[in-house]
Structures are given as C-alpha cells and as structure tokens.
C-alpha cells in the first residue's frame, strides 16, 4: 500500500535582509497510515517549517519552496491551488499548534471555533454542528461540555484550551493530525493527560499522527517512529526502541546522553554537546552537526552524508553519517 504521506526532497528557504535562511534542506520521508511519527529537534532544525510548508502555511515571501514534492493520498500538495489547500486543511489534515493562548480567537465562543471547519467542510446546519461540537468536547475530556460550548477561551484553563485545540484539530476526522509542540506550554501533569488522550484517540479513530516536539520523553511514549532533525536535515530515523537503544547519529546520541536520566546530585557531570546551534544563513555544506561533533571526520565538513539504512540494524533505521558511531565509541572507551 502506498504511504499516506510521501515527502520527496523538500527544500525551503526564507529570503531575509540578513541573507537566505536555509530552513529545510532536502528532506524526504514517508509515513504510513495509522503510524505515529515523532519528530525531535531544536529551534532551527526545520521540524516546524517543513510541516507548515507542505500545506501552504508559511508566508511566501519571505518563505520560498525551492524544490520538492509532497504526496498526500497520491496528490502533490505543493501543486494545489490555495482553494484546494483550503478544502484540505482541517478536513484531511488537522493541526494542533503550540500555544493555545494565541491560536484561539479570544472574541469567539469555543463553539464557533470548533464548528467553523465542520460547517465549512460538511455543510452542517447550526444544530447539527452543535451536536458534533459537544461530542468532540466530551471526546477530549472536557466536563460539562454542553454548558461550556458557549464560553470564551479565557474561561478555560491552559490544559482545557489545549483540549479545545485538539478538538478543532480532529473535528473533521482528518486522515493526518500534525501537532507542533502541542504540550510544550503545559504543566507536566496536564501534558500527561493530553498524551493519554492522544493515545486514546488513536485507538478510537486510528488517526495518523505527526508529533513535533523537543522532548525525548514525549516521543518515547507516543511514537512508533522517531525522526531526529538538525540544521534543516534528517539526521536519523527509525523505530523508537531501536533509535533510543542504538543511536547511530552523534547528535541523537548526544541528546540522549545529555539528559539526567534520573541522576542524582553529586553523581557524574552531565554530558554536554559542545558549541552552539548552526547559523542557517550560511550555505549548508557537509553534515550540519559536524562543527559540534567530536567524532566528525574531514569528510563530514565537506560533504553532506545521505540518509541511509544502517547496516546490520532493523529495516527502516536510517542515519545520515560518514562515521561509524559504534566504532568511534569503542575507540573512545579503549582510550579511557
């Protein structure tokens, strides 16, 4: 069966007064129906921009899609008109953004905001839409849904607002739900509830999910596949268990190693990745992580490694490296 989403060689830049920002560089991947893909990366990794650009949600200019194809159910989204994208967003592809404070309209009731995509895409009457809104709010765990639909966003707590955002995201039963740092602004206790809710919804309605975050812990609990991005590129990707246990990109390895892992005070010093995130204004040459990578070779600085199947690992475990991390770690251990 063809994958639900098939991204090929997507490259996105932003033309700014300071120069051209190379935000997404030659990103290709697929996602199967029903799969949950966790995308991990820091600011500037291209994780959000690539997701927004595939459905026409970046401002153009300054944004510019230089190349690529994004096949969703067989159609290239990058060739669709604004009108066609308008019909697709919300209905086929749902979005949940980071900040429920700014992504909800403060002067419209929650009912209006959830009902809008429903009425637009399905021509529901006002009362039909209302029934569906109540149903959705109950689904995302908002108590007394019927009484609360007439309220405004400020009458909801942060966690409840994020639930409203999720309700909007799934209102039209989208094939694909893209959540961009959807729990980052929330308290950990609320985050735990939202993650539970997403797992539950997947069981109930089988949505395919792209969950974008910087939190390794969140990905560990939610995703089937993890994709690590850095400097606009995919550094590594594969089944979560495999990548957490046997990372092959020095960046993934460094990220995992720099977490405290339940470590107590006075135990070993935290491992720290040296250096600073890359400046994307420079023309990308070589492996973007190479300047911060103690295992980097001459070649890493000159030539960009392709994302390739890791030899000897499970199918689908891919890394973009010129070095063999396992060998390098062995050498390092031998030295100590």
């Amino acid at each position, binding site marked *: 069966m063809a994958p639900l989403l098939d991204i090929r060689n997507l490259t996105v830049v932003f033309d700014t007064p300071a120069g051209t920002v190379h935000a997404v560089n030659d990103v290709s991947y697929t996602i199967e129906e029903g799969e949950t893909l966790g995308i991990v990366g820091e600011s500037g990794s291209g994780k959000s921009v690539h997701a927004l650009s595939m459905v026409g949600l970046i401002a153009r200019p300054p944004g510019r899609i230089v190349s690529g194809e994004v096949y969703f159910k067989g159609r290239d989204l990058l060739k669709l008109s604004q009108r066609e994208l308008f019909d697709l967003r919300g209905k086929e592809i749902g979005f949940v953004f980071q900040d429920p404070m700014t992504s909800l309209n403060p002067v419209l009731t929650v009912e209006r905001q959830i009902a809008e995509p429903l009425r637009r895409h399905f021509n529901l009457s006002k009362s039909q839409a209302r029934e569906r809104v109540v149903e959705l709010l109950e689904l995302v765990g908002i108590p007394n849904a019927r009484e609360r639909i007439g309220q405004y966003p400020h009458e909801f707590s942060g966690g409840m607002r994020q639930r409203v955002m999720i309700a909007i995201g799934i209102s039209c039963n989208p094939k694909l739900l893209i959540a961009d740092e959807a729990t980052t602004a929330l308290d950990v*206790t609320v985050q735990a509830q939202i993650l539970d809710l997403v797992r539950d919804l997947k069981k109930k309605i089988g949505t395919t999910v792209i969950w974008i975050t910087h939190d390794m812990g969140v990905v560990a609990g939610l995703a089937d596949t993890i994709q690590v991005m850095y400097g606009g590129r995919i550094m590594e990707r594969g089944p979560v268990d495999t990548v957490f246990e046997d990372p092959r990109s020095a960046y993934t390895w460094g990220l*995992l190693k720099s*977490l405290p892992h339940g470590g107590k005070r006075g135990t070993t010093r935290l491992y720290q990745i040296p250096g600073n995130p890359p400046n994307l204004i420079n023309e990308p040459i070589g492996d973007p992580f190479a300047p911060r990578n103690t295992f980097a070779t001459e070649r890493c600085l000159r030539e960009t490694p392709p994302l390739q199947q890791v030899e000897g690992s499970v199918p689908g475990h891919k890394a973009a490296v010129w070095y063999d991390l396992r060998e390098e770690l062995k050498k390092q251990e031998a030295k100590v």
Partner: protein
Amino acid sequence: MSVDRTMTPPQKPLVIANRLCKTFGGGRSLLGASAPALKAVNDVSFEIFPGETLGLVGESGSGKSTTGRVLLQLEEPTSGDIIFKGQNLTGLSKSLLKPHRRDMQIIFQDPYSSLNPRMTVGEFVSEPLIVHGVATNKSERNDRVAALFRKVGLDPSFMTRYPHEFSGGQRQRVCIARGIALDPAFIVADEPITALDVSIQAQIVNLFQDLQDELGLTYLFIAHDLSMIRYLCHRVAVMLRGRIVEIGPCEAIFENPQHAYTQALLSAIPVPDPRIERNRKPITFDVSANLPPEEATLQPVGDRHFVLR
C-alpha cells in the same frame, strides 16, 4: 513556623523566608467594587543554607516565580519576613536595601527578552559594577568583565558585540556573567534553562554547578523540569496554589513523596526510554477539587522532610 528546624546545621541559614504572603488585587476599583484578592504566595516559610541549592517546583500560577521575586525584594511581600544573612530585609528603605542587592541576584527564563538589544553585552555585564561603584576605573572594569566572560565560557572578544549576534545559550551565559559580576552570595534562577535548546541545556546546568563549586553560591532554582531538579538540587519545595505542600531533601521527595500532588507531579515526568514510557501510568490529581485547606500546616514526616496536612 519555620521549617527545617530539625536540622542541626553547622552554619546558619543564608536566607530565611518566614510566613511570606503576597496578595495581588483585592483593592477597590474605580466604581467601588472590590475585586477578589489572589493569594499568589500564601504563608510560605523555608530556609536556604550557604552553598545549598533549593529547587522550587509547581504548576504555572503556583506562585513559585513570585516567591523568588519577593525573596529578592523585587516585589514587596504583603506580610511576612525575609531574613538575609541574619538581617530582616522587609521594610528597609531603598538606600538601606542597596548594599544587600549586590549580594542577591536573579537570572531570568528568557535570555531573548532579558538582554538590552541596544547595549553591547560587555556594557550589559559591566552595568552592575558601575551602579554599585565597583571598579570605577574603565580599564579595571574591562578586565573584570573579561574575567567574567571567561568564567562563564565566553570569549572576551565578544564583549563589543550586541545580543542579536548570540544564540540562546550564549545569551544565557551573558546573563549569568552579569548575575555573578558583584560576587553575590545568593542567586534566584527562575527557569533558566526552559527557553534554551535541548542541546544547550546541559551546558548551562553544568555551568551553574561549576560556579557553585567555585564561588560557593547558594541557589533557589525554580523549574518545572523535575529531572533537572533532581540532578541539581539538595532539597526541593513543591508549591501548589501559593502554598508549599511538601519540602525535603531531594531523595526523600523523589523516592518517598507524601503529598498527593507531589506524587502526581512525579508520575507525570516523561521518561526518555520507550519501554518504560509506554507503560507509565500517570496519577491524576484534580487541583481545584483538592485545594490545600487553609488551616493545614507543614508536618514532619522524615528527616528534614515536611508535608502540608
């Protein structure tokens, strides 16, 4: 009531918060209606010993940042006392407070908004030296700033640059350099790593540790990342709706949490291990249904370990 009384420390506490309260609102509005007062900090007491790191955790709106600000007299407490190095700071005039100010500093969450975009980072770090009349001679001041830059891991040649030329981690290093410029004894760090990229957080955590070892600093470390708290702190205080619901040594809190809210909070930390994380069952805790009763007090449950009951 003062917590930690069972401890027989070799030294006196550096900072004592004694029954601090901070209420917002509640005044009469223009039309004479009185708005309900919000008790952001409600009867909060604790002590911090020299060289110690006390972690302060809780949900947003629990009053942890306000506690930090009140402690530094950036906001006046509605009631209660702050004893710093044995002297009561509450009610002191600005001029009497000024000598204490150099001894207590704050580092904020967002190094993008806490730096002045029109000042070179060198000027920014030297500002406290000028304000407090330390190193009045310009070349001497420059030398001190250069030394501070080296101490926080920045190249002194960066001194003449402006904040926009720096990444988040470097900006936070600049803020820390300013924070330690006057050799303070006590630093309130208000979510200092939250806004930083994941690959940078460990660098800054290590810097905080190194500076403590080197300069004997005392920290109040406010955070919501509990795994970092465990790694950094000697003791932790858990806040809920303006009150401390549990306080104790890190190990006691993490291994043997007593308050239902602490238990829920700990169970909610995502673990970066798919095998554990997939089967983790967070404990739910409905805050509004379980507000700490007004008359509850901190009761001892173990060595230096107290819980609100």
